[in-house]
């Protein structure tokens, strides 16, 4: 098995999960209604736990301790897609980003459940069940708000158009795409992207929202190579502030 390809793939999943988990945790105490506050906080907790599990797999492959990897790297060492690091903004943007991201994450983990790398396949079979609640949550809100009032529909539509170039950046290809597919570690970003498009089309089709024309959108790439927006470093500074005051402290 090409270990470099595998590690690159695991880092990208772990970083996506950690960064979106951190963003979702920023809704704690801030949700528009109590139930949404709890929902985003719970999803954040799931995601941070899932990222820990992925960093643990990387540690078993010789990388540093999960906490060190999570808290001591700088922005240019992170492999998350830029979509996950964008600020939460208003609730409409958060729910649209959550829908676009979670749909891709659910499909990615589903594909990983058949990975030839058994530790990842085992983890994926577990995470799949948890993500089902995230994706049901996202779909429910997109369907309700996407068919409710003029204001909710136009807000979601605007957020959809804003998020879409970044969402397409989820599928930025790895330099190891061929190896990953050939060794059955992962079926590849192309295949994931196709599944993702048909899945979001299906949900949006039940609403008054319009899927922007993907052919004319320029995807925002770079995240997978460590080229991030100006929003990631401040997020990392805040996330790691306590850890960095005394690395190695026992809590």
């Amino acid at each position: 098995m090409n270990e470099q390809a595998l590690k690159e793939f695991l880092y990208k999943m772990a970083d996506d999960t950690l960064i979106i988990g951190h963003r979702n945790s920023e809704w704690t105490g801030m949700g528009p209604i109590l139930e949404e506050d709890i929902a985003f906080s719970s999803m954040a907790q799931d995601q941070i736990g899932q990222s820990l599990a992925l960093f643990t797999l990387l540690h078993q492959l010789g990388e540093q301790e999960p906490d060190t990897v999570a808290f001591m790297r700088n922005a240019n060492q992170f492999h998350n897609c830029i979509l996950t690091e964008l600020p939460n903004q208003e609730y409409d943007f958060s729910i649209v980003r959550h829908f676009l991201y979670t749909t891709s994450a659910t499909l990615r983990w589903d594909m990983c459940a058949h990975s030839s790398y058994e530790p990842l396949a085992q983890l994926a079979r577990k995470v799949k069940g948890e993500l089902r609640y995230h994706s049901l949550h996202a779909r429910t809100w997109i369907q309700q708000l996407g068919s409710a009032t003029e204001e909710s529909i136009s807000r979601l539509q605007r957020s959809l158009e804003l998020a879409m170039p970044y969402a397409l950046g989820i599928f930025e290809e790895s330099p190891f795409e061929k190896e990953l597919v050939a060794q059955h570690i992962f079926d590849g970003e192309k295949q994931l992207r196709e599944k993702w498009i048909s899945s979001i089309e299906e949900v949006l089709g039940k609403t008054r929202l319009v899927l922007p024309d993907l052919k004319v959108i320029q995807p925002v790439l770079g995240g997978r190579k460590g080229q991030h927006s100006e929003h990631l470093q401040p997020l990392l500074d805040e996330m790691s502030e306590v850890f960095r005051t005394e690395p190695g402290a026992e809590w």
Partner: protein
Amino acid sequence: MFDSKQILEWLEEVKDPEIPVLSLVDLGVITRVEFKENKWFVDMTPTFVGCPAMDYMKQDVERVLEEHGIKDFEVRVTLADTWNSDKISEKGRLALRQFGLAPPPVLSTLIDDLSILEHVACPRCNGTHTELRSPFGSTLCRSIHYCHDCKEAFEQFKPLDS
């Protein structure tokens, strides 16, 4: 001398720290107890990957094994046999209800919409005139519901498939 059945009985003492009436054995997170090469192995698996109680539960299992004089043992957290809510025993379901948490329904298929969380029987009055308030609750494994008969909110230990 003792066997794995005896060890499982001892492990009945170890409760879920968030639901102190429910043992880890009845919750279904103890997936295996076996004696191999002069050593006892106890396998545990998390209900949710991000469950923050896992470390405490593992320490509790180790403490109970030590207290019963077992010297050579290893407690392993593994995903080889993943947890799903059907692993909760009948005794565990009863304990949940007595604690005030609705037990999860037994799953016949994969969960594909939230309707499985509607009309959950209220743990107080058993009525099904209830509605789902949120698929997420005060801990990762709970959802929030409202009973129109009791006019009270309640939580469910929610179903999870794997």
